């Protein structure tokens, strides 16, 4: 793996990297200064974001500049506009945004300012998952410092650009990481995703034009504005530019959050970054980008880690939350755990998702405990195909269906074995924790 330029995690090595003074020492707030003092036109900022090729880092990989350009023409639509920063980070395996928020919160603040300027948004709301207490406190402290320094609020840096940034807490629901579920939750309601159309840029927070972006996506903005689109495009591969944060977990020697360029193979990441599979064991399977991307078999380990290559290989880049399983991992058990998650997190609106996530969970649970039946395996596929794609208000149904299909596709034999044996040969052997009756 050759040397590559770093920028995302460049500043966090410094002590107190989360403070304003250290941020400034390390070159912070130069980007917003450039924007406001040149001054750049909002449209020009959007153009440079488009040219950079930055794709959203929240899982969908949608081109960020294009998303920003969906905001309506301000001369024709006088409604206030908002940026919502998705810091709900709840995709299983994903633990990268909290690194930025805990260790470099001013980077996020500056990114918000640039995004709000580009989209003429009057305020940014940073929706942080309720469990991320340290992230919340660090970003709030950074906003307070920035406000005191005239960088947030009215007339920023003495210009007529005014922008507020508010922290907002979630309360433990994964579905509030879905754009429209996030907006419902921010408005003080149950986090039920909204049917689309309308789309957030047309009708978002409080029916106003809104753009929802992931933390890491926004975090990239100051670098792109300051160093230029060409610089950004010099990193990664043509259709997945820049660097990304890769969260590596599971059966590896060196789990962690790493800044990486696009274009490495999963094998390179496993062997050269994560220290290989632990305990001298062999790789069995891996999730390339969070549980919703579904398992890839060990044979797919040479997949190139960029958005389009992973898609072409039959999975998704997602949040680059790479979870590695060794040969002792039971696929039925992993799928039981995975579907338990989607069963818990379905908001319950759509019939297929509400019933289907529970049904799939019950089936994987049964199979993993040796109570599977032969016809279960095909039924899993049939149910997953009944849930997705595109049959529900949001993609949580897809997030449950895709891993189901991938597991059966790549590991059918293991499921069949559990059925034939009447037990899971790879089942954990420790005594389970005592469960309160009725608790789930």
């Amino acid at each position, binding site marked *: 793996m050759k040397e590559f330029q770093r920028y995302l995690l460049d500043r966090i090595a410094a002590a107190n990297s989360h403070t304003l003074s250290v941020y400034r020492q390390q070159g912070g707030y130069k980007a917003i200064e450039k924007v406001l003092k040149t001054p750049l036109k909002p449209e020009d900022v959007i153009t440079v974001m488009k040219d950079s090729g930055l794709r959203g880092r929240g899982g969908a990989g949608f081109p960020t500049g294009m998303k920003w350009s969906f905001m309506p023409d301000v001369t024709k639509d006088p409604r206030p506009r908002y940026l919502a920063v998705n810091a709900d980070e709840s995709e299983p395996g994903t633990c990268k945004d909290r690194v930025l928020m805990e260790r470099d919160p001013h980077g996020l603040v500056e990114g918000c300012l640039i995004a709000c300027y580009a989209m003429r948004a009057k305020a940014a709301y940073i929706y942080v998952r309720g469990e991320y207490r340290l992230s919340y406190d660090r970003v709030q402290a950074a906003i307070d410092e920035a406000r005191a320094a005239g960088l947030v609020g009215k007339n920023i840096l003495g210009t007529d650009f005014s922008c507020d940034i508010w922290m907002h807490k979630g309360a433990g*629901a994964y*579905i509030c990481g879905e754009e429209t579920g996030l907006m419902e939750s921010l408005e003080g309601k*149950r986090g*039920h995703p909204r*049917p689309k*159309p309308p789309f957030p840029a047309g009708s978002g927070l409080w029916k106003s034009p809104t753009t929802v972006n992931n933390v890491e996506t926004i975090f990239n903005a100051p670098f792109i504005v300051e160093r230029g689109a060409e610089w950004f495009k010099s990193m990664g591969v043509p259709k997945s530019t820049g660097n990304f944060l890769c969260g590596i977990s599971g059966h590896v020697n060196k789990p962690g959050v790493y800044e990486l360029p696009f274009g490495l193979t999963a094998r390179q990441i496993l062997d050269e970054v994560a220290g290989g599979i632990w305990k001298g064991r062999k790789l069995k399977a891996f999730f390339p980008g969070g549980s919703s991307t579904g398992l890839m078999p060990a044979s797919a380990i040479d997949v190139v880690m960029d958005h389009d290559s992973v898609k072409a290989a039959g999975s998704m880049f997602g949040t680059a939350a790479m979870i590695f399983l060794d040969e002792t991992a039971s696929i039925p058990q992993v799928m039981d755990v995975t579907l338990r998650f989607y*069963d*818990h*997190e*379905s*908001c*319950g*609106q*759509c*019939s*297929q998702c*509400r*019933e*289907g*996530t*529970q*049904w799939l969970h*019950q*089936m994987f649970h*049964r199979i993993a405990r040796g109570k599977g*039946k032969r016809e*279960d395996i095909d*039924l899993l596929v*049939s149910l997953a195909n*009944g*849930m997705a794609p*595109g*049959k*529900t*208000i949001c993609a949580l149904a897809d997030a449950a269906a895709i891993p189901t299909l991938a597991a059966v596709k790549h590991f059918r034999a293991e499921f069949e074995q559990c059925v034939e044996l009447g037990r899971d040969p790879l089942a954990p052997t420790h005594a389970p924790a005592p469960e309160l009756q009725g608790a*789930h």
Partner: protein
Amino acid sequence: MSQTPNPAPSSASTPAPAPAPKPATIKIQVDGREVEADPKQPLIRACHDQGVDVPMYCYHPGLSPVGSCRICQVEVAAGPGQPSRVVAACRTPVSPGMVVQTDTPKAHETRRECLEFLLKNHPLDCPICDKAGECDLQDYSFNEGQGKGRSSEPRRKLEKRKSLGDVIVLDEERCILCSRCVRFFQEVTHKPQLTVSGLGSRSTIATFADKPLSGNYQGNIADICPVGALTLKPFRFQARVWNLSKTLSTCAECSRGCSITVEALRGKEVKRFRPRFNPQVNQHWMCDVGRFAYAPVTQALPPEGGIVGGRLVGAAIRGYHGLERVELESALAEVADLLRAASKPLVLLSPFVTQEEARAALELCAGLGVAPRFVSPAPNNLKDDLLHTGDPCPNRRGLSELGVAAIEPAAALAELAAANAALLVGERIQSLLDVAALAKLPATARLVVLDVAAHDLAALSAAIGVPTHVEKSGQWINVDGHVGVLNVAVPAPAGVAPLERTLRELLEHCRAPAAR
């Protein structure tokens, strides 16, 4: 949305023509037919308006659409030859040229899948469920379902008989979480009382802290519940809906005159009232006062075969030995004599008489040389912002339009006390005047009562039974001038003639005394 192009600047002196007015409807294609669609309504309405039965659970035309049940999925393409995709019709705006197909294998497959998911946890309660026979889950499963479920998993175990107050019972296991009931209270009564509680497969419908539901509109949520999750306590286990005859009628409990359906077991005993859609009067709703008023409609016969103290079947005259049953002809002849002999008999109408009955009464009064009035009780305290007018007279406006003046019960009783003959006409007239007060009138008042029930009144000279409002046909006019029709839902007991006919025969008797 197409825009009218700006006319190019012209060098001619004539001004540019004004842009054409935007059409109220747009043209789309539904199942191969070109139809006009209202652009303000979702696609599902365009389909329904054309008689295309796209299934629905969470959608209801009286509530905002949420697109959650996913049963209304149809195939749409932006235009002919364009690629089609499956969408939820209730949340899809119509656009000009849209090509909609509701009957394709893909649309049916999507609905079949959706039904299988709904039936995964839904209990097999049909044999004990009130909703059987009018259940959208049954109906669509029969139309589009797959007949045999593939689940071997245990179903959710939840509360099956949760009382939500005096009107509604909730069966949490049957609920398919369409949220219509939640939206009803939010959007129609403007006072949220229900919520979805929890999330995912653990969701249930709930009130806060087990508080019972309140207000006068609770029954509507049992109507709009697509399954048997919400049932009406008074109706539980009373009848199988396929044994109920259904007759279009009008509610009698206030001057709103909500359109209703009267449903009677085998056409004989009224088991429930349900609201009927009427965009000008009551939309899809009715209040609980009106909904549960069918109970008093069935009036028991007097005890031990007596004449007073219950439903009056036939006619009775006060002879030397007290009230005696007589043939209707004979009663009419005696009443005609009594009325002709009196100088200016008092004629009072119940506000429950129909226009047809009122006209017959007016003709009779013309023949007697008197003007009738209708008893007009004071407004009650049930008036609300939704339907109930607080005026207990279903045909006040109709009678007023016929020129019949109103008289308050107290004033009427005063006149009755001084009268030497009075004719009281119509259902509930005695209770509107107050039976206890009537009982105090002297025998000289010589009341002739044409009412549903007979009471032990010293002043009673003759009584003739009349049909209730579910036993007659006719028209009322509601507070806003809309006609409310009545139809015979159950037959009046044998021996009870239609009031209009009784009045006309009475008039005949009044005109031809020499024939005897």
